[in-house]
């Protein structure tokens, strides 16, 4: 068995090339469109993910779940077919659905824009100007879709084993040449690659089972499988749902052992205004990745009648009343028209700022939850869920509506109150930046400290006799002087050496 994945975007000639290649290799042929049809039949709202790419929308939390389900379904379909017999898949970066499979042959087809415009003009009966706009936009849309689904760049030849220029080589010639390439030993199935496919298939089946079960469908899970041992992890925000995962996983054929665990911790980020760019955002992302944490953010509001402080999400799914429909259910009965959900004033859904940053963190797989709280110190303190294992609390710019003196005082008080209820370091945004970034100032400090430490060593080792004489005094006065010098020198040396060691370790991310 062999798996060939052809990234051909929307190119019609790419489809023909894939079909002819499959026929010549006597492999089964499967297209992106067929996978989408299967996903739709199984209840995944594929169209939402597609239109999000076209409209450049951030995915809502529900759509992030849909994305996970689509990924699992796509992986399942590819693995099932590839394990049954050899397969040529053609569409968008199918190889990304089978991570870790080294024997997959990854082909990208390229056609120059002018040839494609001509082809689109004829196929879609569009005039030249419109056909050109279509070609340019659809490529961008597909790149965005790949970035949304797999969080990797979707353009360029990088990540492919072979690029076929169908603008220059005809489909027949390209097929013949590719057949020879496909015979290379690197692209043949081995027992190791079969195991990878089986592991991916089991993990995908588990993820789909979790999505179909009414107890677990609403939570985000990461599933890995290794020879029948399945590991399921989930975020602290899903701890109530996550405990059912074990029961769901146990019922799946092929699972011999299971481990269901919550990810390590959350980073709590409290601020007045959020932006999905800037030094604090980057520092938070870096810290979350480094500590395998999810980011929970709290926006402080100055609204005199603030909304409920309960945790909300991108679809306003924080309460039972506003829970979206279960996924993986057939929607034929209602023709795809859902019930309207009355908007809850002031909730996250209405907060574009939170929606944007939640989307950005979701895309990186590190979003925990978002909520809004009134900027009342006591209420903030009581609203923090002490059962969540926080690894760090970051207090950014808060109380921005107040004067400088009042802002600094209240920020300090907030840090103190949070430190009382959270068993984790509470830092401000500047401190966080210093914790995770190594800038030129740090490197300059490191060089200076290294110089100081080296100078101390040089002085001591080049003047050992004098040093020993000084510390072997004969008179009382000299003894007092030696003790005083020791008292000052040792802490100074320790501080310089310790700071240098810490800075060096930070460069290597061993804080």
């Amino acid at each position, binding site marked *: 068995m062999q798996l060939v994945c052809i990234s051909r975007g929307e190119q019609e000639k790419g489809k023909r090339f894939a079909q002819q290649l499959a026929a010549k290799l006597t492999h089964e042929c499967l297209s992106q469109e067929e996978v989408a049809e299967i996903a739709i039949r199984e209840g995944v*709202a594929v169209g939402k993910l597609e239109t999000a790419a076209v409209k450049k929308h951030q995915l809502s939390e529900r759509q992030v779940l849909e994305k996970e389900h689509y990924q699992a379904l796509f992986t399942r379909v590819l693995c099932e077919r590839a394990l049954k017999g050899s397969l040529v898949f053609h569409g968008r970066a199918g190889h990304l659905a089978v991570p870790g499979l080294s024997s997959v042959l990854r082909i990208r087809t390229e056609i120059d824009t002018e040839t494609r415009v001509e082809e689109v003009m004829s196929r879609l009966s569009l005039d030249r100007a419109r056909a050109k706009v279509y070609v340019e936009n659809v490529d961008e849309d597909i790149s965005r879709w790949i970035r949304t689904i797999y969080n990797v760049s979707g353009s360029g030849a990088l990540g492919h084993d072979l690029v076929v220029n169908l603008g220059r080589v005809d489909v027949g010639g390209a097929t013949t040449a590719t057949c020879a390439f496909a015979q290379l030993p690197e692209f043949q199935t081995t027992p190791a690659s079969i195991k990878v496919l089986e592991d991916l298939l089991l993990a995908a089946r588990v993820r789909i089972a979790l999505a179909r079960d009414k107890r677990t469908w609403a939570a985000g899970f990461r599933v890995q499988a290794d020879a029948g041992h399945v590991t399921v992890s989930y975020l602290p925000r899903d701890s109530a749902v996550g405990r059912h995962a074990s029961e769901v996983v146990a019922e799946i054929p092929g699972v011999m052992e299971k481990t269901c665990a919550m990810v390590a911790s959350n980073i709590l980020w409290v601020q007045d205004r959020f932006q999905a760019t800037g030094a604090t955002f980057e520092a938070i992302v870096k810290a979350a990745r480094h500590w395998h944490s999810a980011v929970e953010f709290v926006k402080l509001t100055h609204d005199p009648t603030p909304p409920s402080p309960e945790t909300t999400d991108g679809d306003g799914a924080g309460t039972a009343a506003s829970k979206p429909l279960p996924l993986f259910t057939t929607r034929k009965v209602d023709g795809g028209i859902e019930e309207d959900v009355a908007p809850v004033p002031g909730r996250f859904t209405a907060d574009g700022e939170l929606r944007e940053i939640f989307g950005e963190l979701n895309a990186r797989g590190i979003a925990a939850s978002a909520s809004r709280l009134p900027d009342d110190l006591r209420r903030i303190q009581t609203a923090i869920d002490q059962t969540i294992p926080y690894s760090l609390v970051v207090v950014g710019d808060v109380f921005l509506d107040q004067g400088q003196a009042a802002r600094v005082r209240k920020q300090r008080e907030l840090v103190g109150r949070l430190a009382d209820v959270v068993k984790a370091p509470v830092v401000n945004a500047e401190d966080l930046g210093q914790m995770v970034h190594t800038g030129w100032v740090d490197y300059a400090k490191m060089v200076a400290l290294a110089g100081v430490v080296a100078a101390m060593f040089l002085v001591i080792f080049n003047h050992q006799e004098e040093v020993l004489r000084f510390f072997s005094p004969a008179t009382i006065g000299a003894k007092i002087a030696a003790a005083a010098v020791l008292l000052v020198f040792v802490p100074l040396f320790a501080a310089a050496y310790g700071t240098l060691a810490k800075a060096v370790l930070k460069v290597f991310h061993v804080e």
Partner: protein
Amino acid sequence: MGDRRVQILILDDEEIVGKRLKTALEKSDYEVEIFQDSRDAVARITEKEFDIVVTDIRMEEVDGMKVLEHALERSARTKVIIITGYATVEVAREALTRGAFDFIAKPFKPNDLREVIVRAIRELRF
């Protein structure tokens, strides 16, 4: 435009879609006509200029792209909104390139459609 109500045509081969959307949109005081057969809808568009046409893509006889083209040929000011359960990047982009006002993937809530209609009406300068 005076006090004239917004004229909307809805075309979907599933009966329940038209019924549910008609009920929902009439609550917002729009005048709504629903069709299941795309040939009937095309004939009606030929007869009458609608402000907004909401159409599915995948249909027997005349597909949504043809309905879109016909509606825009009939009146360039008509706003055509595509709704479909089989939305793909390629189909969405094709519809937008052909002049569709917006594209909504199923499943959606009537409120999602209302929001798009409100934007369309704003452009129509009612």
